[in-house]
């Protein structure tokens, strides 16, 4: 009986094709936009989640320059100004951080400017960072070839990214080559694996494959002993919370600076959590707005069904006279409304899939349609169909057959 009712409904909808398509469009747009927005939100959340995972939630960054708001740190990557102006962080701060409780590894980041070349080949826009041997541990960086510095090597050695190696040395799978940095020869002892570490790299490095790491001491020598620490990366012990360590570091450096808060201590987790909660709020908000279109679509269904019931009054009378029960008439019109809404829902989800995969080519994030969001979109559209279909269907079922038959 239900399959039959569906067939009757589809036949009836087909006979008013344009009207059906227009009515369905409302639901299609509603479902598609809600699904897509939720998919985008989910995509961003996953991206953020994988960032947390890559960087480790246990990494703290110390940067020169005060934060604007207590607690909420500057978004990652906005500290470029701090990177080019004289830094307020010094070696004493570094030492204080190293001696803070529950700190397992510390890596200073000192940006070194200068030309990088190999023979006649010069690297454009080199990105040179002087750091310590603990950097791989802090930022989860791995090497494809060779090794990172160790405490015994503070001579002129370098670990370089794949792009740098390819451009200067013509190969990325061989160590021992020589490059010239600020007029000084460095021996390449390792090639970085660009698939590891943080791609954002605390906002300092554009890409691990374009980076050149040199020992901290070598970096200091390049500047005649002066230090310019643009960022300190801190790894927190497993058993400690980043918040405690952050507070300890904060007070230690503040003491060093004579009470001046000219630096920021940022936990990565905090930054990313803030980002992901903003994303969540935005997603919910936008989805709520988009779901208004579902409501509008539902009213559209109701409107059309009411028109349809009036228009088909005679048909209802005929059907009743040949033995349709009120329930069967109700079912017919309800199913008609549901065919519109479920059909619209299906098309909407399909549209969201297509738009989502098209968007993923242009955006860094991949819109992810999750099963719950599918159920939600589908559930909502079906509910809309039932809710807004029920009044017209009841109206149809209650029609007096004699009146209905007389209707022209």
């Amino acid at each position, binding site marked *: 009986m239900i399959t039959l009712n569906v067939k009757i409904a589809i036949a*009836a909808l087909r006979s008013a094709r344009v009207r059906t398509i227009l009515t369905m469009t409302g639901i299609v747009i509603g479902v598609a936009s809600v699904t897509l927005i939720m998919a985008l939100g989910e995509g961003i959340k996953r991206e953020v989640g994988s960032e947390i995972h890559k960087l480790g939630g246990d990494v703290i960054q110390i940067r020169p320059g005060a934060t604007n708001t207590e607690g909420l740190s500057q978004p990652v990557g906005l500290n470029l100004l701090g990177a080019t102006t004289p830094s307020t962080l010094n070696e004493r701060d570094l030492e204080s951080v190293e001696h803070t409780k529950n700190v397992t590894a510390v890596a200073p980041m000192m940006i070194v400017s200068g030309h990088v070349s190999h023979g006649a080949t010069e690297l454009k826009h080199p990105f040179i960072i002087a750091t310590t041997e603990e950097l791989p541990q802090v930022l989860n960086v791995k090497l494809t070839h060779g090794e990172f510095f160790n405490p015994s090597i503070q001579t002129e050695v370098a670990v370089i990214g794949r792009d740098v190696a390819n451009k200067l040395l013509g190969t990325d799978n061989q160590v021992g080559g020589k490059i010239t940095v600020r007029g000084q020869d460095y021996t390449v002892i390792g090639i970085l694996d660009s698939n590891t570490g943080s791609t954002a790299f605390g906002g300092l490095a554009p890409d691990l494959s374009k980076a050149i790491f040199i020992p901290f001491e070598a970096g200091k020598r390049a500047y005649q002993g002066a230090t310019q620490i643009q960022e300190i990366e801190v790894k927190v012990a497993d058993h400690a919370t980043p918040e405690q360590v952050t507070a300890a570091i904060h007070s230690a450096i503040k003491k060093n600076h004579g009470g001046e808060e000219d630096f920021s201590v940022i936990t990565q987790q905090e930054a990313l959590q803030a980002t992901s909660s903003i994303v969540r709020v935005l997603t919910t908000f936008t989805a709520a707005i988009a779901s208004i279109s579902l409501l509008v679509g539902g009213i559209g269904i109701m409107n059309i069904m009411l028109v349809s019931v009036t228009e088909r009054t*005679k048909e209802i009378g005929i059907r*009743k006279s*040949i*033995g*349709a029960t009120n*329930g069967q008439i109700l079912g017919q019109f309800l199913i008609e409304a549901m065919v519109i809404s479920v059909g619209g829902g299906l098309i909407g989800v399909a549209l969201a899939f297509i738009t989502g995969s098209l968007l993923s080519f242009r955006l860094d994030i991949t819109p992810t349609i999750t099963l719950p969001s599918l159920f939600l979109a589908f559930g909502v559209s079906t509910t809309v169909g039932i809710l807004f279909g029920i009044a017209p269907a009841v109206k149809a079922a209650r029609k007096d057959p*004699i009146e209905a038959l007389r209707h022209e």
Partner: protein
Amino acid sequence: MPRKKTDTSTNNKTVIALTNLSKLYGVEDATTVALDNLTLKVDKGEFVAIMGPSGCGKTTLMNILGLLDAPSHGTYYLENHSVAELSSRQQAKFRRNKIGFVFQSFNLLPRVSVIENVALPLTYKGWGHTRRLNAASRLLKTFGLREREYYMPNQLSGGQMQRVAIARALVNNPAIILADEPTGNLDSKSSEIIMQELSEVHKKGHTIIMVTHNPNLTVYADRVIRMIDGRIASDSKHKPKPRPKNAKRPLGTVPKPREEDAA
């Protein structure tokens, strides 16, 4: 199923038994009496023609007989079932299984093919698609409409549409066929064909109750009831006369007004 009730005054042959049936419209001093204390019995296999002027209650009677309307007073037994005791769902079931309607304006579903129209009552019975269409097709064949099965109603002539409607009324093999002015919208030639079809249906044993304005059509009936003001004015049984051959006056033309028609 409703409890079977046996009225002492009816026998096994009785299909319809109306006792002191009244139908009132409106309230208080604005009340109109459509049917006034009407008592009527129709036996299985009868072909009853109901005649009478407009407003005499013919249509109200048909609606009540067809379970589309309920009487204000009195009882209606259809095949020994008290109709008043049926729920609206059961009434729908009765309409589906025991009653076939033939309307003046055919009342075919315009957007559904001929065969689907005929099969429609079986649809509500829950028959499967193939079984339904087979039954409809068999019936349409007997009406000579096999080639028109997949036509839409608007592609048919009036006479063909009415034949489709009769087929639809018969598809459930109902106890009674209620025909309300079945030839009212047809020309004389088509009217004759329709009346012959109904006559055939009658010969196969179906009970037919037909409302008509046209006295010429009563020759097909074996019982003629004349109604005035919601009452039965006359009720005469006669053996159907053979249609006079080469009748001069074509069917469907308005005859000389009789007493009651002049009202």
